[in-house]
């Protein structure tokens, strides 16, 4: 079921799973008396440059570590992952935020609409191919890009920033 190595560093344990296994893994972690991960600390989207990830942080009194569950390899064109609202209703707004910022579709979330950006907005601002209008740090001399231009122009010299290393 694991889609990558288990890592442990500082006070955090990290496991990686496929998007299809999210429901089973979260349900087991939450319900199994050996785990009892009752607190959902965070849900975050991540754009890796060539794929997307959804990162859950969980807390349980059975372990001194935070557990980080990463659903990996979501397609960048149509990122889909099952919603965690069947276990934690509080995940609803965090998933709305990840949808608003990354365009990740959480299947089963009854209220998946934009939460911060206006309803007629069309871009996903935290994606790596969304450049700031005046991004002097990353593209000196490139000039001002239009805020809602999602894809860089074909002759752009500023490549999408991709995650390196792990």
């Amino acid at each position, binding site marked *: 079921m694991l889609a990558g190595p288990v890592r442990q560093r500082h006070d*955090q344990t990290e496991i990686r799973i496929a998007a299809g296994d999210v429901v089973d893994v979260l349900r087991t972690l939450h319900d199994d008396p050996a785990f009892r991960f009752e607190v959902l600390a965070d849900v*975050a989207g991540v754009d890796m440059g060539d794929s997307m990830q959804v990162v859950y*942080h969980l807390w349980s009194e059975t372990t001194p570590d935070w557990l980080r569950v990463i659903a990996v390899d979501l397609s960048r064109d149509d990122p889909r992952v099952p919603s965690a609202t069947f276990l934690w*209703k*509080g995940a609803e*707004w965090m998933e709305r935020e990840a949808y608003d910022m990354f365009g990740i579709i959480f299947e089963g979330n009854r209220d*998946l609409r*934009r939460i911060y950006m206006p309803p007629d907005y069309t871009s996903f*601002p935290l994606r790596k191919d969304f450049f700031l209008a005046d991004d002097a740090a990353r593209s000196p001399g490139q000039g001002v890009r239009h805020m809602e231009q999602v894809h860089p122009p074909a002759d752009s010299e500023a490549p999408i*920033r991709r995650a390196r290393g792990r």
Partner: protein
Amino acid sequence: MAVQSPSLDDPRVLVDTPAAIVDAIPPYAPRSEREAEFYALGDGQMLLNIGPHHPATHGVLRIVLKIEGERIVDLDPVLGYLHRGVEKLAENADYHHSIAYTDPLEYVSSLFNELAPVMAFERLLDLRVPRRAEYLRVLSCELLRVSSHILFMGFMALDMGGLTPILYSFIERDEMVDMLAALTGQRMLFNYMRIGGVNGDLNHEFLSRLGDWMSRAGRQAEAISTLLNENEIFVKRTRGLGAISRGQALNLGLTGPNLRACGVPFDVRRAHPYSVYPELDFDVVTADEGDTYARYLVRVEEIKQSIRIIDQVLHEMPDGPVMARIPRRITPPPGRAWAAIESPRGQYGCYAMSDGTDQPYRFRIHDPSFVNLQALVPILPGCLIADTMAVNASLDPIMGGVDK
């Protein structure tokens, strides 16, 4: 020939566009199942728009209430009026720079906003912080926790129509920010936490102000709680109102005093100790009722615990440097780190990813107010319109943090 625009004197113009309906119902097709359900009005129901500019919404929060007479049937909070895109800005700034961006998020307790990212960056760097710096962090944070809770007491009373307590709150708050200005150099946006330590050591002015304050610590809070704790109007309006059960609170992801008021002793300082909290002696305050009054009482009690912590920190503060030796340009090795702390509003988290450059690859802020505010939706139906303000105040959201 120009098209004749309708005259405002024409009665049909007003009939066609009744203001209340146009303001509340969105002018586009429903985007989700829940939105469609909410904006479909049943018999005898109407929508009432509160905000975004309303003194009792703690910032700019808009709440659309669906009401039947005086009773709330359903509600839809609308966020985003304060959204500044801090996460995106931080991904385009270097590590030191992004800490300054987090300051104005939750403006009532800025030090906590700085501490979580700083701790996450330190974990990326495998950096050990000098012990004196850890003590200074705990000291300044606990001072701000007292200040934030005292401000909460004042605002809660103000939201329910009591003007006096907020005046006492601000006396204390003023003293606090002046004290912290002596320590950090700023009154509100401190920028005190640095990667590897803190910005400045203790100084004479801070210590003399702190000494003065400690000699009468908690007296202002005592004065406010004398006004409120057994105030008949206050108690009648809050006891039993907006009660949340233990299971419901965990399911909603509540943290902080809101969760502890439901009988769950979850406090990140104890549940997942960080900094020097394992060495300090304090109690995790809980209550069983889970109602608005319990949430108020838990905070009042936490003020006393924070003063206990400050007292211990002042006695046990070791000597030594307040900053680790780090280069000015930081390039952590590629990796991921999560840091969570207990802010006055609950578990404040920061998730940072490094790709080996001098800018964070991903910078995520998890604000407790954001999750706590969600609880309005299940607990308000059945209450009266006026209770919206009392329940909202007791959850203590700060919209700067909610909207990021």
